[in-house]
């Protein structure tokens, strides 16, 4: 998690479905070796953790505040999205 704090997007205003759609769109455009980082609320964290872990991503979660989490998604080597 080496990115500049200011460049990390905050998706906490998105609903869970739209967050999932937005992330899939970003991941599609991101090189598999690069990680996608962003901030979300606690309920959004719960929505992201299991589905993306199951579909071939390493999910790193760091608590930033009481209801704010910094998430990093990176494709597991040799995995296709399920």
């Amino acid at each position, binding site marked *: 998690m080496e990115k500049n704090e200011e460049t990390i997007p905050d998706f906490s205003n998105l609903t869970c*479905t*739209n967050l*999932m759609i937005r992330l899939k*769109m970003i991941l*599609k455009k991101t090189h598999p070796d690069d990680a996608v980082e962003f901030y979300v609320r606690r*309920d959004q964290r719960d929505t992201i953790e299991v*589905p993306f872990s199951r*579909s071939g991503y390493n999910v790193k979660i760091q608590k930033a505040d009481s209801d704010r989490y910094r998430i990093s998604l990176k494709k597991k080597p040799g995995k296709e*999205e399920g």
Partner: protein
Amino acid sequence: MSHVGVPLSGNTGMNPHFFLLGGTVTAERLSWIEECLKFYFVKINPSNLLHHTKGQDDVFTFLLTGEALYSLHNPAIVRIWEILLALPSVTILCDRQELMLRGISIEGLKMKNPDQVIDHNRLGISGKPSFWNDVARIARQHEQPVPSTIGYLLLSSPYMHRSSLAAVQCLNAALEAHASVELYAYLDGIHCGHTGQKPTEFENIGEGLEEISEKAARRGLSCQMIACNRCATARGYSTWDDGQGQVISACTIRPFRIRNMNEIIERFAKNHLILGEDIASIQIKKGAQESSFPLQESGRVPPLTIFISRTPYGTETAFGGLSLAVACAAQGIPTRVIFIEDGVYVIAGTHVVEENSRIFNLQEIIDATAGSSNLQFFIFIPSLHQRGIAKNPKMTAVLDIGVPELGQLLFSPHEETQAGHQRILFF
């Protein structure tokens, strides 16, 4: 005006395939439905064509209310209805009150097909006939789980759209049929739950929903009214959010609960019937033995087919259908999205959304979510041809289909499903 029976399969636990149509039925829509039914009778179930086994389980019932009734008055569309009625075991059941309101006569069609075109509705406990008593009877018999539940997906606002009244009438009839009821408010359907409605020339929808909740409680039946958080927040209903899925609104009626979309999808994961303005339910024939606990088994989640039939961007409808499909698939519900009629514009041309725009590019959503588990995209090629447009060649994740493939998708069960029916929703 007693009831004339809809040819259900009675006590066998089997149910007819049915279409519940309340929106405008165009010649285009009825034509592809007709082609698909022909495919069913010729390719999938030819024995029915030969023997006309009426009264058994391969019955197609068209439940028509609201604007759909005008299709029985339009000569070009009536011709298609006549072809459909010539097929085995096809029945049309009309909402008599709505026919009378519109001054639509269906006598010609009734005289030619007296056993198949029905415009007398079942009496309820109140002693009044109602089309929704017939609908509830069909829905109540679905798989016969105990206790039974009937859901309703509400997409339209009240007063501008008469379909909001249909939701109230439908849920009232469901309670009369001793079913628990669930309302899912989505897109503009959210507005039906606004507090303080005081219409002077229309039934009060807000009060109607509150009365349903009270009536359910008196009868010991469950009543849930769940509103989509995204749609409610966009429309100014979410006045306090605890960040964990609990949203409190100062402007919704008491039974309405604003919740994360996933809470609605959890209800979709149960196997009850979900009705709406334009929906269908296709029976899935069971090969394996039935379970005694149909509500608890994950394999019995009804697969979902969403027809996106409207143009993108002009309204929230196409995005709403797509968003619901993505959410359902993510929750493990086998989901198919079929772009048809004006919905093919979603896949035509190359859509460009300005970089800082807040709206989603629907083509990008499809591209990004294609390949996800439980989610498939299709485009009905005859709809493209009819409009003289071409599919965006980059949209390779959306598979081309014609009538035979559409027939297969509708009438051949999803692999490995143990569900009793397939849900079809029109957006």
